[in-house]
């Protein structure tokens, strides 16, 4: 195919929005910054790392004003004020909700076990809520959040970022159109070298800040990271697992902790499909990613980038002639580029590897868009509940060493 033919072919692809496999970008998803109508006034409850990252992304939106920030920890509160000096600071979220006038939305980024109280208090006051993942550390609490969200007329979004990630959306359209054939295996991992310990200094701060290492409160590596990754698989497959098995141990951080630093889990979907999950705090090799393995190819998703690896007998798609490729030892990955068509037309495809914004940006953008357009959230409280049930039971399987049945009855808000 000559270059000009390729270009016109590509244009044809872009025009045929309903084509089985299309790399037509959703540009509005990639560059939402100035698209909001009325100003949205928000408060952030919980200003640890995630809360501060949220503040960094929110600053990009012209019509978003952060009126207040809240954290029980004074140092964390101060560090968030370095990003938004004009915001009012509160150590108590109830006081914030009582005193700050004109709020539209609240973003809950507290420790997981405090999500329910904060989310319910905000919903009670008629505010839109964005709640970080996992929704809760107990199934009943996640059910209560989902029930309250269902009753309310406000937008409630669970912060599971796969669903708004442009690369993941593109990959999902490939997978669901059959590009990698029938699914035969699923995998996900979260690897990072970190003690997972927050500096505290005194026993009171230790209890408040190191909840991840408190066996009573922590949902472990599976709950804190696997939940988010399982949601990606739920969304791609349109199914939920029905059982979980797993094991875990403290292998690297022998500092007296009880919460496992390394885990393996297997979850079964109906019809024989299995997910193999592993996570460790002792090594960072290959970081965080999900794998979908099919009869015609494999998709690897790594949050800010994604690739498709084809089997030799898979049919060639027209757009592949343009595609960017990366070599991984013996395998060649076709880079999944969210705005490929536009970049290809501008001759800048190689500049398009990776997202224009971090995944968190797209998740917040989706929330703000739902508020602006008065539409249901892209990732609802019900989806948050389902993922939380899966995450909590998988964590239980890992800590107890006993298989856990995932009863779909638990997916109902109560």
């Amino acid at each position, binding site marked *: 195919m000559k270059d000009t033919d390729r270009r016109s072919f590509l244009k044809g692809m872009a025009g045929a929005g309903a084509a089985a496999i299309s790399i037509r970008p959703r540009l509005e998803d990639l560059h939402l910054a*100035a698209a909001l109508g009325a100003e949205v006034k928000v408060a952030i409850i919980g200003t640890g*790392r995630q809360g501060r*990252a949220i*503040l*960094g992304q929110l*600053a*990009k*939106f*012209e019509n978003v004003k952060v009126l207040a920030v809240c954290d029980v920890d004074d*140092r964390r509160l*101060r*560090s968030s004020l*370095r*990003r*938004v*000096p004009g915001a009012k600071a509160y150590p108590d979220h109830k006081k914030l909700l009582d005193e700050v006038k004109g709020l539209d939305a609240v973003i809950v980024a507290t420790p997981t076990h405090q999500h329910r109280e904060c989310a319910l208090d905000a919903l009670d006051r008629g505010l839109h809520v964005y709640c970080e993942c996992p929704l809760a550390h107990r199934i009943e609490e996640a059910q209560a959040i989902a029930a309250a969200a269902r009753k309310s007329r406000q937008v409630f979004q669970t912060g599971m970022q796969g669903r708004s990630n442009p690369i993941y959306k593109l990959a999902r359209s490939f997978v669901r159109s059959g590009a990698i054939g029938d699914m035969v295996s699923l995998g996900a991992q979260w690897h990072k070298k*970190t*003690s997972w*310990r*927050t*500096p*505290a*200094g005194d026993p009171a701060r230790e209890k408040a800040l190191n909840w991840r290492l408190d066996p009573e409160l922590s949902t472990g590596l599976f709950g804190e990271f696997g939940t988010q990754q399982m949601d990606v698989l739920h969304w791609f497959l349109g199914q939920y697992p029905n059982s979980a098995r797993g094991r875990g141990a403290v292998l690297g951080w022998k*500092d007296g902790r009880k919460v496992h630093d390394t885990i393996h889990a297997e979850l079964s979907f109906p019809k024989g499909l299995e997910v193999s999950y592993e996570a460790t705090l002792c090594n960072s090799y290959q970081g965080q990613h999900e794998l979908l393995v099919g009869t015609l190819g494999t998709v690897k998703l790594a949050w*800010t980038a994604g690739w498709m690896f084809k089997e030799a007998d898979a049919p060639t798609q027209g757009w592949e002639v343009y595609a960017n490729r990366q070599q991984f030892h013996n395998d060649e990955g076709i880079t999944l580029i969210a705005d490929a068509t536009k970049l290809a037309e501008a001759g*800048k495809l*190689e*500049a*398009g*590897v*990776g*997202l*224009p*914004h*971090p995944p968190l*940006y797209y998740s917040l953008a989706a929330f703000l868009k739902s508020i602006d357009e008065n539409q249901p959230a892209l990732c609802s409280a019900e989806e948050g509940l389902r993922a939380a049930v899966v995450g909590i039971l998988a964590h239980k399987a890992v800590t107890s060493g006993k298989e856990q049945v995932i009863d779909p009855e638990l997916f109902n808000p109560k």
Partner: protein
Amino acid sequence: MILRLATQAMGTRFELVLGGEHARHLRAAGEAALYEIEECHRRFSLFGRDSLLSLINREAARRWVQLDAEAFSLFELCAKVAAASQGAFDPSVAPLMREFGFHPELPPGEPAEPSPVGWQHVELDPERQAIRFHRPHMSLDLGAVAKGHGLDLAAQVLREEGISCALLQGGSSTVLALGSPPGLSAWRVALAPTPGAPIACLKNAALSVSAPTGRQLELEGQVLGHVMDPITGRPWAGKTRRAAVLATDAGRADAWSTAMLVRGPDLVPPQGIQALLASGSDDALCWQLNKACPTQSFGSRFLVPPNQKQESA
């Protein structure tokens, strides 16, 4: 006890040496500090498409780009040093870096008219905490300040967590000292691995050393380093071989060491900045304190061996 931690960021290795009593707390505080450095990399990388800097470089010629206050303060620092150094420090040289091939990670740049280089074409609005460019094709490269800025953010976390004895360094070129090692009055950092090299004595202060080594290219028979002279618009090729700068914070030390290298001994840095410049050849450097600098300020200083030429105000 002494604990060492490291991370890979901004194309180099960052290392912390922490002194204290409680191992778990030291490690947790050190990891929180390294996180700030990694966050600084994520936000200000020229090469990551999803960084805040890439967003600015893509959009600021077309519209105001809003920033959070922490990011805005970094650009205010850039503006201050750019003005005080009469343009010797200028992050807007990014298009030149690309044009000359110092950024092979990015597609090669082409000369543009009017020139997209010059901090005077960058506008900051403190009211809105926003930035914009007055000319198309402009882009910023924070390579001469981001390492130091990252160390400052990391040190802030360590201070808040009560760590009073630490040495933080990035890429072996920027160093920040908290307190001093047990039993000593200051951290002593040698400016070169050779015997007789000057020593920087640091206590709650930062040191940055700029040199035209590292990434190099050959132009018209001359080997040139990766430091761009914003005034001539060409890779810098002057007589100064090293510029070492002491300051109270690492961001300023980092930026001023680049400025001092480019402009040499004639540039007078502001109060609180102390500079030591080296001329000669790389294997026989001749160090000299900048004339305008006091030899001692804020408890930190350079120790220059007596066989080196030394001048002071």
